């Protein structure tokens, strides 16, 4: 058989193979790819088959099911846009100021703390976005002690976050007025976040599955935990979800990434549907039995 014939045979993926893969992805991640989106899968599937050196769809599917080499993570990565930038998924920020904070302040007196956690915070775009959004859109921003914490397992990312320098791509959703207001300087490297804002965010190193390190951070009113839980194995995901639950005040909220769902992660949280977003809540009162 000629070399190209072998390649053709190895690369062949039937429509039923794609259905089988889609059912697996739906079970594992909650992501549903309807018939009309199958072409979207095809290309990425072929990329991953080639990248893993799998000789057939069957071999690739076996690798995927086995959980080896985090292949599910690689495949999901191929579907999600992992770029981070300011005001990414801003519908959740909108939900925060339209709905979540109303619920949060119901139990607070003026001057009380409101604690918000961005974990993982990566290179800082998310915690700074939360800060800027609140200052621009939360009318009660001066009435409470707002504390924003950004945490990540990656210390280089944390160093970059503390440094606060961003290029044009990261700022693409910010208006010139916002950039002028919250960034203090421009250089060849980009714009730097205003010193006052940089200093008011606490950046820490943390591993989501380390219960003790997580507990050190205390309890929060809102947690943004976007696009990381999907990559853990089942047991680690549950442990991380339990730690996040523990780090919420009763009634506190957690926001996942837009293509993530708690329905594949943990049954600890209640789902809350708001006009701008689906978020999850630590129940206000606990059921002490089924």
């Amino acid at each position: 058989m000629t070399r190209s014939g072998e390649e053709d045979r190895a690369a062949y993926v039937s429509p039923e193979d794609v259905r089988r893969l889609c059912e697996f992805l739906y079970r594992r991640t909650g992501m549903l790819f309807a018939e009309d989106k199958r072409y979207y899968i095809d290309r990425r599937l072929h990329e991953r088959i080639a990248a893993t050196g799998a000789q057939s769809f069957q071999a690739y599917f076996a690798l995927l099911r086995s959980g080896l080499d985090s292949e599910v993570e690689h495949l999901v990565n191929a579907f999600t846009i992992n770029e981070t930038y300011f005001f990414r998924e801003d519908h959740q920020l909108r939900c925060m100021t339209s709905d979540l904070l109303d619920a949060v302040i119901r139990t607070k007196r003026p001057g009380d703390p409101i604690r918000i956690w961005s974990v993982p915070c990566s290179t800082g775009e998310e915690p700074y976005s939360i800060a800027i959004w609140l200052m621009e859109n939360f009318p009660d921003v001066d009435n409470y002690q707002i504390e924003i914490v950004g945490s990540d397992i990656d210390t280089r990312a944390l160093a970059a976050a503390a440094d606060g320098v961003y290029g044009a791509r990261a700022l693409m959703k910010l208006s010139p007025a916002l950039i002028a207001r919250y960034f203090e300087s421009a250089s060849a490297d980009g714009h730097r976040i205003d010193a006052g804002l940089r200093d008011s965010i606490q950046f820490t190193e943390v591993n989501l599955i380390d219960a003790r390190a997580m507990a050190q951070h205390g309890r929060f009113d809102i947690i943004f935990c976007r696009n990381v839980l999907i990559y853990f194995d089942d047991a680690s995901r549950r442990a991380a979800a339990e730690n996040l639950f523990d780090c919420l005040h009763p009634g506190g909220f957690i926001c996942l990434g837009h293509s993530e769902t708690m329905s594949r992660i943990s049954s600890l949280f209640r789902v809350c549907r708001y006009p701008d977003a689906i978020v999850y809540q630590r129940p206000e009162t606990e059921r002490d039995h089924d």
Partner: protein
Amino acid sequence: MPLVRRDIARPTTASADEAAARDALRSADPDMRWNAARALGADPASVASLAAALSTEPVPRVREAIMTALMRIGNEESVKALLPYLREQDAARRGAAIEALQALPDVTAPFLSALLQDADSDVRILAVELVRTMPAAEATRLLCEVLAHEPHPNVCASAVDALAEVGTRDALPALEACARRFADTPFLPFAISIAVARISDGKG
């Protein structure tokens, strides 16, 4: 700037006291039991304590944390502690145990042949769900045996569902024979036709 910054202490390097955590599993305070379960996920010596706690734990989130700890330990003793829950009356506890066992396919595998022949058809259905997590060739073999001998259509239905996901071409004769056996029942012939299509169109 209305934002406030407060320092967060780094955890001490003092090692976790597993014995204290095991005691705390029996505390009257659900939060203490919750923290204890979460602290024991790396401790194989705690399986017996976790299993004992699981059998009496009324608070759902503490039960979840105990299950997570058993999943993370994931040894034969954990699996043995979880298997009895396949017979639980309560759907939530049954489901939680299945989920934990599904995360431990290699350790659970040796127990499956016996479970697939259990007297209770509901246990056999749950056992089929566990077979789904095994490598394709072994799963196909076990599931074809089920299809050949299983009298209960709902157990066969679960096996067909599992084969639709993982079955190889070796499953085709057993599927076709099952379709003939249950030709006059609702659902099974439909399900088998889907499974056959899934398996046949692929190249495996």
